């Protein structure tokens, strides 16, 4: 039995999705920052894709220089607040902390980063002022982490930046895709507003760039175009019955949960297919939404699972049952999910095969497919931007797409990674644009 009841109010929802990295108060931040050793050539910096000078910002917190600490963070990472909360710090900065070598609890870098940046956002601390204007214009497609990070960086160089966003709200997966217990929507949007006010880029919502004609118009009007288009909807699981009612893609399920949590449909007995972090999120979220039984099916062994260990632990912690070496064969039911048929698998020399005669059924009333997201090949064809076999945009070392005026970064280039990777790469792409135009 799940410990969570289906939330019927905003308050109940937030209670079920209590923050796993809650904000620190000043005292906790002071104590925690006191513990930092201020390592030389610190491993935490190297483990951060955006290379934040972590020991420096921690020392700045410790000495009461909160403005300085926020500046240190934002100079390296324009999504400093979101990243403090949603980064898998266990495998990045905190995983690299030398205290781990001593079996001492690593510094809580993520929470310290949130402490610093939340204060800056709440106080609307101006960290970047008197930006130059160089008279050139850049279009950014997509207001996700990559697009916004690129926009901020481009503004620092003096470009006028217009962002075109298909959805009604900004921040991409940071808003629409991250688990609610990692960050609240309000926090994501507040950072966006903070950045927008400070950097002064223009964001146009509900403005999907679709056609070749629209693309040509942008190409004419702008000196360069940055693509931060991310990925598409959930990829097909290629199993029978996946079009049944109550069989949903994880990306879509999570987006509904994020935008209209009280309206999200969650079954009583939920099966989640997949072994990535999105699968873990979808499973955890189903449980926290009141599902009484949540089962995670992954076709390979636990060790081969692409999700982080701590994400699986989080899911297990809210009652999710994980089953490994199981290949779903068909969603059962009559137009409506009644169960799922699977078969046991085994790996031999890296090759996965089904074990004949081991089919079994699990009764359920909802199936969530966390089987990866589609690439946006059609759109890239429209733009005439090249991509590789798996649909990832091909870029050079400056993140430029061939010899075009397009540059790209984020999930659309790396195939789907963390917010922090998108920020790091987009920043470099913006620098690539600047190099290209100067």
């Amino acid at each position, binding site marked *: 039995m799940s410990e969570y009841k289906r939330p019927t109010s905003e308050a109940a929802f937030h209670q079920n999705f209590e923050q796993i990295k809650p904000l620190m108060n000043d005292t906790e931040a*002071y104590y925690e920052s006191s513990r930092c050793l201020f*390592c*030389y*050539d610190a*491993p935490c910096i*190297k483990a951060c894709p955006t290379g934040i000078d972590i020991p420096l910002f921690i020392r700045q917190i*410790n000495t009461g220089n909160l403005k300085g600490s926020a500046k240190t963070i934002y100079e390296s990472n324009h999504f400093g607040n979101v990243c403090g909360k949603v980064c898998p710090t266990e495998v990045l900065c905190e995983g690299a902390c*030398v205290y781990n*070598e*001593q079996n001492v609890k690593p510094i809580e870098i993520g929470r310290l980063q949130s402490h610093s940046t939340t204060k800056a956002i709440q106080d609307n601390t101006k960290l970047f002022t008197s930006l130059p204007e160089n008279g050139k214009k850049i279009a950014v497609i997509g207001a996700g982490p990559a697009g916004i990070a690129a926009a901020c960086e481009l503004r620092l160089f003096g470009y006028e930046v217009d962002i075109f966003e298909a959805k009604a709200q900004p921040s991409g997966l940071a808003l629409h895709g991250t688990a609610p217990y990692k960050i609240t929507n309000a926090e994501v949007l507040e950072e966006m507003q903070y950045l927008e006010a400070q950097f002064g880029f223009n964001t146009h919502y509900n403005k999907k760039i679709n056609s070749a004609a629209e693309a040509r118009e942008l190409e004419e009007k702008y000196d360069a175009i940055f693509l931060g288009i991310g990925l598409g909807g959930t990829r097909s699981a290629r199993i029978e019955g996946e079009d049944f009612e109550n069989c949903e893609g994880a990306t879509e399920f999570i987006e509904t949960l994020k935008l209209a949590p009280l309206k999200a449909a969650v079954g009583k007995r939920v099966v989640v297919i997949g072994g990535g972090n999105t699968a873990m999120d979808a499973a955890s979220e189903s449980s926290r939404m009141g599902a009484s039984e949540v089962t995670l099916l992954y076709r390979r062994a636990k060790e081969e699972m692409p999700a982080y260990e701590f994400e699986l632990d989080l899911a297990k912690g809210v009652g999710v049952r994980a089953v490994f070496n199981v290949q779903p064969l068909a969603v059962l039911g009559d137009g409506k999910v009644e169960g799922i048929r699977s078969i046991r698998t085994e790996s031999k020399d890296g090759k996965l095969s089904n074990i004949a005669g081991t089919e079994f059924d699990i009764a359920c009333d909802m199936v969530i497919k966390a089987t990866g997201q589609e690439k946006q090949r059609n759109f890239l064809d429209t733009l005439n931007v090249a991509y590789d076999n798996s649909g990832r945009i091909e870029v050079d070392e400056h993140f430029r797409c061939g010899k075009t005026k397009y540059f790209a970064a984020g999930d659309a280039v790396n195939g789907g990674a963390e917010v922090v990777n998108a920020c790091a790469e987009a920043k470099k792409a913006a620098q690539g644009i600047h190099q290209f135009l100067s």
Partner: protein
Amino acid sequence: MANLQANLAGIKSPNPFWLASAPPTNSGYQIMKAFDAGWGGAVWKTLGVPIINTSSRYGALHYRDSRMMGFNNIELITDRPLSHNLKEIEEVKKYFPDHAVIASLMVQSREEWHQIVKDVQNAGADGIELNFGCPHGMCERGMGSAVGQEPEVLKTITEWVMEVANVPVIVKLTPNISDITEPAIGAVQGGADAISLINTIQSVIGVDLDTFVPYPQVDGKSTNGGYCGPAVKPIALNMLKNCAQHPDVTIPISGIGGIESWRDAAEHLLLGASNVQVCTAVMHYGFGIVREMISGLENYMDEKGFETLDDMVGKSLQNVLKWENLNLKYKVVADIDTDKCIGCQLCYIACEDGAHQAIGLSGTEENRVPHIIEENCVGCNLCSLVCPVEECITMVRKDDGKQDVSWTDLAAKDMAPTEFEDEKAGGRHHWVPAPADALKK
């Protein structure tokens, strides 16, 4: 089990832990509570003509999340009438006849000294401490450290006291002086039975960066105070050692300054204190800390085979020489235990920027364990001090132990460097990088 019984110039107490004359000994109530908690003695908050105190009196120096590494006060002597204190001394002695109650005194004229000494003796005080140390407020009126800084005056006042004293007299010294042994000798010459040191060090504890007013603040202004707490222990230990080693300081010493644990107390005892006095630690944690002090010192004494305090008092003095008599042939170099190293590289940057460029890095991302460049290592200890891992960096002896040559020996044989370009300079053949190497990335 070790016997903690202490005896300072005839003043006996069940253990060597006394409360110093300060706010924790302001009243009979506090002292009774302290004795009940286990303290062996208490020096009553200084008696004299009662004063008027300021509101806001203390300031503190914090180090990161450690509170009160250093502490500073501008409080004066007792503000309570003498008769109240005398009555309470009498009462405390009734309840605790075997504990040491010392009256700290500070007055001006010979007549006043005579009167107050007789008064506290009549009340039953086991000893008297002359406060020649207070470095704020009282010194402006010619008392406290104003006396302690003038050995002749100190000697004269001590003589006045000795004219009527029939209990042991301790002279409490101020550290706000170039050579602490001068007033110590003045106390001996004046006939005192013991000295105690150190009183607080003149200090400004910090400045409010918003109002520009230093701490502690009294209606928008401040004044210098007296500094104490854990941070002053090294200064106290040095002055204690100077007095304890001086041939003319022939009377016992009560050690004061930065004592918070049994370890601090043991250090004072080893450097020549017959007992110790504590204030700041009690102001921080209350009287209960004495239990840790007693049990820690007992265990330490048992472990070292000391049956009584006399077995350990002054035991370290023989190991403190003048610099010029240290063996210049002794050579240690650092050694890093690669299994214990956590890769913080603090030793590397400390040596690189703050010492002798004697630690190298592997140059690879995977291996963060630094290594000692032995030919550059001067054995300064810095790396072992900054290392956050216990016993990870140790200093290993490299000389054969057969030679003992000091500066004094060298000077006597005309082998010490005497000229700017002297061949005999210690660093003459040490490798140092070229200045411009600093700018190479």
